[in-house]
C-alpha cells in the first residue's frame, strides 16, 4: 500500500523535526490551517503571513529547513505560528512532503488544510469578498474534500534582477504578468490526477524539452484526515479519489489558482545557491536554467503576456472555475 508507505515515511521523518515554538493548543476548532516549509525566505514572510491571515487562515504550522537569515526568529515571534526546525535533507524528505505529512497527521485531522510554499498565493472564486472559511463551508456542504488548482507563474517585464522586492510588499505589484493560454494538460493514470505543464518556464526554458518542464497541477486545499498523505509536493495525494478534482463529463468543478511569486530579485541569489546545493526537484534543473538565462533583457515577458488583474480575469480566461458556486 503506497499510502501506508507515505505515512510511515512521514512518521519516521518526524524525528528530524525539532519543535521551536508550539502554539497548537491555540488552534480553534474547525479552522483553516496552513502548512509550510521555508528556507532563507525572510523577505517573503511578512506578506505571506499577512495575505493568508486576511483570507482567514487561523494558524500556520511551519518547518524551517535551516534558515540562516533570521526567518526562524521572525516566525517564532508570531502569535499564530507553530514552528519546527530541521537541518536534514530537503530532498530526502521528498522536498518537505514527509515533514508536512507528519504535521498534518498530527495536527491537521478534521481541519481544512492549505499546504504551501512561501511563494504561493492561493486564489479562489470570490476570494476578494468571501473568506476562506466560506469556501470551506461550501466545500463541506457539497461533500468535496479537495480543491484543484493550477500554479500560475507571475513575472516582471524585464529581468528579475532589476526588481527590488521589499519585505511586506505585495509581490504582484512588481511581478504581475503571466501566460494566459499555453498550458498542456494530461491525466496521470497512476494517481488519477491531472498533469499540467506550460506557462513561461516551459515557453522560455524548456521549449526544446517540454517533458522536463515543471508540473503546475496542485491540490493545496484538503479537508484533512489522518489516513491521507501527499505523494509528491502537493501535486497529488492518496487516496486517489482526492485527485479527482475535475469533471470528465464536460462540466466544470470549482477550482482555483496558486499565484507563484517565484520570479523576484530574490531568485537570483537563490538560483546561485541552489545550483550548488542540488536539493531541489531533479537536482534543481530549473535553477540551472534560470542561472544561465538570467541576463535576457525581457526576462520571461513577451508581447503576448497578460497583465494580472484579479480572480475574475483568471476565471474568464479558463484558468480556474466558479463551478456551481454562485
Amino acid at each position, binding site marked *: 500500500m503506497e499510502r501506508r508507505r507515505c505515512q510511515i515515511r512521514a512518521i519516521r521523518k518526524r524525528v528530524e523535526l525539532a519543535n521551536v515554538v508550539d502554539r497548537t493548543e491555540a488552534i480553534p476548532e474547525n479552522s483553516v490551517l496552513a502548512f509550510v516549509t521555508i528556507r532563507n525566505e525572510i523577505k517573503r514572510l511578512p506578506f505571506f503571513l499577512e495575505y493568508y491571515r486576511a483570507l482567514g487562515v487561523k494558524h500556520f504550522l511551519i518547518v524551517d529547513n535551516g534558515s540562516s537569515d533570521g526567518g526562524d526568529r521572525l516566525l517564532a515571534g508570531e502569535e499564530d505560528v507553530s514552528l519546527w526546525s530541521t537541518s536534514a535533507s530537503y530532498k530526502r524528505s521528498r522536498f518537505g512532503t514527509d515533514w508536512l505529512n507528519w504535521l498534518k497527521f498530527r495536527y491537521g485531522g478534521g481541519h481544512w488544510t492549505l499546504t504551501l510554499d512561501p511563494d504561493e498565493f492561493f486564489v479562489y472564486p*470570490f476570494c476578494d*469578498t*468571501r*473568506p476562506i*472559511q*466560506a469556501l470551506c*463551508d*461550501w466545500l463541506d*456542504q*457539497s461533500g468535496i474534500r479537495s480543491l*484543484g*488548482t*493550477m500554479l500560475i507563474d507571475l513575472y516582471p517585464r524585464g529581468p528579475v534582477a532589476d526588481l527590488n522586492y521589499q519585505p511586506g510588499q505585495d509581490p504582484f505589484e512588481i511581478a504581475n504578468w503571466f*501566460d*494566459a*493560454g*499555453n*498550458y*498542456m*494538460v*494530461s*491525466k496521470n493514470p497512476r494517481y488519477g490526477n*491531472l498533469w*499540467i*505543464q506550460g506557462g*513561461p518556464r*516551459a*515557453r522560455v526554458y*524548456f*521549449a*526544446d*524539452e*517540454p*517533458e522536463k518542464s515543471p508540473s503546475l*497541477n496542485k491540490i493545496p486545499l484538503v479537508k484533512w484526515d489522518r489516513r491521507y498523505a501527499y505523494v509528491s509536493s502537493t501535486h497529488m495525494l492518496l487516496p486517489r479519489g482526492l485527485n479527482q*478534482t*475535475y*469533471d*470528465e*463529463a*464536460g*462540466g*466544470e*468543478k*470549482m*477550482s482555483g489558482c496558486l499565484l507563484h511569486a517565484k520570479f523576484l530579485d530574490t531568485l537570483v541569489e537563490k538560483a546561485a545557491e541552489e545550483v550548488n546545493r542540488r536539493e531541489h526537484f531533479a537536482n534543481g534543473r530549473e535553477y540551472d536554467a534560470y542561472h544561465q538565462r538570467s541576463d535576457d533583457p525581457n526576462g520571461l515577458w*513577451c*508581447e*503576448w*503576456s*497578460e497583465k494580472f488583474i484579479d480572480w475574475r480575469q483568471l476565471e474568464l480566461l*479558463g*484558468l*480556474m*472555475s*466558479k*463551478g*456551481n*458556486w*454562485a
Partner: protein
Amino acid sequence: MTVGFVMLAHGALQRTADVAKVLSDAGCPLIIHVDARVGEPFDRFKTRVSHLPNVSLAPRLACEWGTWALVQASRDCAETLLRQYPDVSHVYLISGTCLPIKPVPELTRFLADHPDTDFIESVTIGEVPWTKGGLSEERFTLTFPFPWRRRRKLFDLWVEAQRLVGRRRKLPDGLSPHMGSQWWCLTRATLETILNDSRRDEIDRYFKRVWIPDESYFQSLVRLYGRKVESRSLTLSKFDFQGKPHVFYNDHLALLRQTPQFFARKIWPGANQLYRAFLDGRQSVPPLARISPAHIDRTFIQASVRRTRGRPGMVMSGRFPGKDYDSALTAAPYAVFHGFSDVFRDFPRWARLNTGSRTHGHLFAKERVEYFGGQSGFAGAMSSSAALRDYDTRQFLRNLIWNTRGEHQSFLFSPRDSQEITEFLAADRNANISIVTGAWALPLLRSGRSVDEVRKEAAILQQREADFIEILSERRTRARARVWSLAEFLERPLDPLQEIVDSLSGAEQHLLAEMPELKLMVGLPDFLQALRNAGMNPHMAGEVSEDVAAQMPGVARIG
C-alpha cells in the same frame, strides 16, 4: 392581526438569535425549535433569547434532514403559536439561517392586504419537474425507512428492491401529491383545518414514510383545505443542480436588496455585512429598484450550466472531458486548408481578405509553428516551438482556438506537416476541412529534382494524405470535410473557392472578385506520368490534362 413565526434552527445559533431579536422587536410572536442534536451552544442561545418578549422555545426533536421530524416540529410549533396568540392571522415558517430582507412592517402590511391567501409553493409532480437531482414521483409511492445522508447504500438498495417488486403505495383518498419549498406562510384558517382534520392520523401515517415530507406535507394539504393558494414562497431560496441550497454572502447584498421576497435563505453565518445591512434598523438604506425573479434566477442558472456543461474547448484543473465526451472539442469553428499552399501563392492573405478569418500558415509544420504574419508567438503567449506543440498537439490547437474566441481561425495543412493532429481534427465538429488531394506533387515538380529522387518522398506524402482521408471517412468523424482531387480542382478552381467562402461567411452571399494567385504548374501532367512510369502512381492527384495546366490563369505571370 399579526404574523407569527415558527423558526427551525439547526446551527449557527448566534445568527438565529440575532434574527429572533429583530422579529421580537417588531412585535411578532415567535416559536423557535432547535434541533435536539445541537449540543452545548444551545445553552448560550437559550440565555440570549429567553428574555425576549413573545419568544418561546419548543420542546426539541432530533431533526434529521429529509425526515418526518421536521414536519412534526413545524406543525407542533404552529399549533402552539395559534393557541397562545389568538391575534396571529398568518404563520410564517422560517429557518435559523433565514434573514428578513425587508422590514417586518412591510410584510405585515402585505399580509394584511391578503388576509385569506396561503403563500406556499405547491406544484403537482406530474406536470412540473420541481425536484433537482433526486426522486420525484417515487417519493410518494415508495417507503423510505433508511436515512439518505447516513445510510446511502441501504437507502438506494431499498429503493431498487421496491422498484423491482413494483411497489406502489396507496395514497390517502382525495390527496393529490404536491411539492414545493418548505418555507411557507399560511393563514390561521388553513392551518387550523389541517390541524383539526379528522383524518389526520391516516394522513400522518402516510407522510411519515414519504421521502422529504417537509417538501410535500403542507404543500399537498393546502390543495385540500386552502381557500386561496398562491403558489410561491415569500422566502427567496435557490437550489443548485444537485438540490443543495445556494448560500448568500456579502457580495449578494445588491441582489438581495432587489429581491421582491421578504426573507432569504440561506445566509452564510459569517456574512457580517448582510446581517448588519438587514438587521440593523438604524441603517435604513432605500431599497434598490426591484428586479424580476427571472433576473435573479439567471445568476444561479448560469452556475448550474457552468458546473454541468462547462465551457467547451477549455481544459483546466476543474475540467478534463473524458473519452465519452461527445460535444465540440474546441471552443469555436475553425477552417483547415489542406494542399492549398501548394496550389496558390500567399493563400492566407487571400483567405483573410475574402473570409475575414485569421489564416495562419502551416501551424503543424515540422520545423516551427507558422503563425499568422510569421509571428514568433501568439495569443495566450503560445510558443512557436515545434517541440512544445508536438508535446501535446491537441492541447496546442485547443489553446489556439480558445485564446482567440471571438475571431475565426484558419490554418494551412499538408502531408509534409506533423500528422498527429489528424484524428483530433476529424473528431472535432468545429473543424471545417477543405482538401485538395495530390497537391503535394506540385512542390516536387517545381523542385527540379528527378523523378527517381522524389518518388520515395511522393509515396510517403501520398500515403499520409490517404490516411487522413481515411480517418475523415470513418463513421465517428464529426468534422465537416470537402475533398477535391488536384485535377478536379484545377479544372474549375473558382467553384470550390466560392463554396469555401460561402461556408465560412455563413448566410452572407459574397461573390468572389479575386482569385488567389496560382503557382507555377507547367509540366504537371508529364511529371505525374513520369511518376506513374517509375511505378509510383500519384492517384490522389487525378488526371490532369496538359490544357488545364497550361491555361491556368496566372501561369504566364508567375512563369
